[in-house]
């Protein structure tokens, strides 16, 4: 177990290094940031001085080495466009994105799982057929279309929910939260629905097909023969056996929620990291782009690690047989 964790940690570190390398080198060739930073009237001398200050004249390996060492200390350099430390900019924007992602993930889970269980158990009822059909739409409609539709309905037509921004936020240390104000919650509703819809339908369909599979197994049949209640069978025995694949997908999807939030944040003008990234792309603001990509990769890798560890908690068969091999009797 311990050696497994260490092995996984090393793997994770390697993945992060590769990601850092890719994102760093990708953006290095994405365009000359100096052009965007200085005005038309800047002299050749100004430009050279700026290049020197940003370390753009150093050889590539040196620049990358500096990037990694700084990144490990949580430093990602100075934004070309905003002339402020990238880590500060990200720290400012992170709460908005994480709160949006959190609410979306919770929404997707607490709706997707019960709906999936329902559709798996009542496979032939018209409700589950309807849900399946609707969910197909959820899977196939692009996020921005959903967002715009919701804005049109609730903000333009009904005038009940705001179409942009976070509402009022409360500052707790460096964290700004929208959870403590009414307008904060109001502002969260449309973006989080938009962001969660795809995951919700995915989770629902996944849980449904896993449930169908599990309901056919002998141990469910035997659980029925033992007279267990439907609740115990459906949610105790069946659902638990669907959890391993569900956790895999959900884990991966929390990562993609963060990635997808770029679109949602753009549609709703949500002041998160995604929006920061989009602006950075427009200005070839390499430090921000590199930091953002590294961060997203970091989230992916950590979640993956967490998912693997969760398997152990759920499935006793994975706790490799130390005492067992000896204890096996026939």
């Amino acid at each position, binding site marked *: 177990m311990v050696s497994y964790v260490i092995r996984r940690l090393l793997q994770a570190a390697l993945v992060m290094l590769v990601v850092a390398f890719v994102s760093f080198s990708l953006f290095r060739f994405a365009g000359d940031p100096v052009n965007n930073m200085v005005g038309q009237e800047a002299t050749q001398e100004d430009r050279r001085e700026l290049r020197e200050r940003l370390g753009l004249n150093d050889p590539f390996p040196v620049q990358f080495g500096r990037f990694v060492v700084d990144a490990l200390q949580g430093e990602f350099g100075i934004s070309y466009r905003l002339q402020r430390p990238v880590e500060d900019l990200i720290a400012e924007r992170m709460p908005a994105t994480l709160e949006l992602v959190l609410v979306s993930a919770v929404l997707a889970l607490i709706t997707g799982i019960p709906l999936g269980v329902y559709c798996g158990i009542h496979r032939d009822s018209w409700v589950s057929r309807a849900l399946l059909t609707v969910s197909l739409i959820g899977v196939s409609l692009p996020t921005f279309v959903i967002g715009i539709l919701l804005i049109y309905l609730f903000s333009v037509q009904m005038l009940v929910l705001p179409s942009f921004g976070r509402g009022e936020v409360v500052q707790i240390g460096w964290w700004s939260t929208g959870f403590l104000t009414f307008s904060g919650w109001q502002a969260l509703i449309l973006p989080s629905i938009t962001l969660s819809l795809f995951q919700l339908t995915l989770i629902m369909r996944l849980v449904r097909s896993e449930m169908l599979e599990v309901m056919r197994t002998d141990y469910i049949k035997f659980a*029925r023969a033992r007279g*267990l209640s439907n609740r*115990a069978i459906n949610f105790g025995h069946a659902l*638990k056996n669907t959890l391993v694949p569900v956790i895999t997908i959900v884990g991966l999807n929390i990562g993609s929620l963060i990635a997808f939030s770029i679109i949602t944040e753009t549609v709703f003008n949500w002041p998160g990291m995604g929006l920061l990234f989009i602006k950075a792309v427009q200005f070839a603001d390499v430090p921000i782009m590199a930091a953002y990509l590294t961060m997203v990769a970091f989230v992916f890798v950590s979640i993956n690690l967490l998912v693997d560890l969760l398997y152990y908690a759920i499935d006793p*068969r994975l706790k490799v047989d130390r005492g067992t091999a000896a*204890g*096996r*009797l026939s």
Partner: protein
Amino acid sequence: MAMANPLLQVRNLVVEFPTRRGTLTAVDDISFDIAEGEVLGVVGESGAGKSMTGAAVIGLLEPPGRIASGEVLLEGRRIDNLPYEKMRRIRGKEIGAIFQDPLTSLNPLYSIGRQLTETIMTHTDMTPTQARARAVELLAEVGIPAPERRVDQYPHQFSGGMRQRVVIALALCVNPRLIIADEPTTALDVSIQAQIIALLKRLCREHGTAVMLVTHDMGVIAETADRVAVMYAGRIAEIGPVREVIKNAKHPYTHGLMGSIPAIGHDADRLEQIPGSMPRLTDIPPGCAFNPRCLHAFDRCRRDRPELIAVDDGQVSCWLYDTAAGRTTAEAKAIVASRSGTAMERADG
């Protein structure tokens, strides 16, 4: 056969599967009783309807399978038409079940202790502590060494034979009146089969539990059953006391099946005593379903379907025993025993 106080009565049970190409009748109008504490063996080739009969009794036919007509009574109470929730409380508590494959009967994600205690607590008022103590007790009773330690282990930590012992403990944990054991040893090593059957037999005798023991294995039947029902193409060909059926088979099919009684571990299936094979449900011949394979078939067999006729201590569905035809039981038995077609024609003519 009228029984004084049958525990289970099955009356004219019909199990159907509606399919796109018409309705299949998997169990076709069968009736039998099981007395308190009795072991009824049920034998027959694969597809004869043994499992469907068991599933119908415990109310676990899988849709689209359904009981199309007939009744199932437990201690005189009808149970085939109970609402789901009422029937659920009977399952496990009054009628237990053991299925074929112990490797897949247990939920891999829960310890066996947890699976035992949840069953016990579903049907009794025991506290978790009491239920756990009972679980340990049960594991000891089914012969699992070091039960205090094993109770917290998971199914994958047990061998096949040990898992079937756990399954037996689960089926017996609240002392049901009847156990339906559907080929409980088929999936096991031959060397372990006899142990498991002996265990099941001992426990059921000690607890006074009746058993409907479905098996291919004539050896198991000979050693375990009080009475035996022989099924063929969804119907009962013959039913009666085990000695009678084995030593003195009346139905031509049973007679072929019992030609020799192998030791435990041999399948009746694999005995090629009778040429031909059981018809599929889609093309069961008119009259007696056995007639294409029967050495003694005559005109009536191809026309009318025989019902169970009481003969000696049992019942047999074969036109040879139709007393209205003016043949004595002894003559009919002689015909079957002769195993020759010419003898039959004489009797018929």
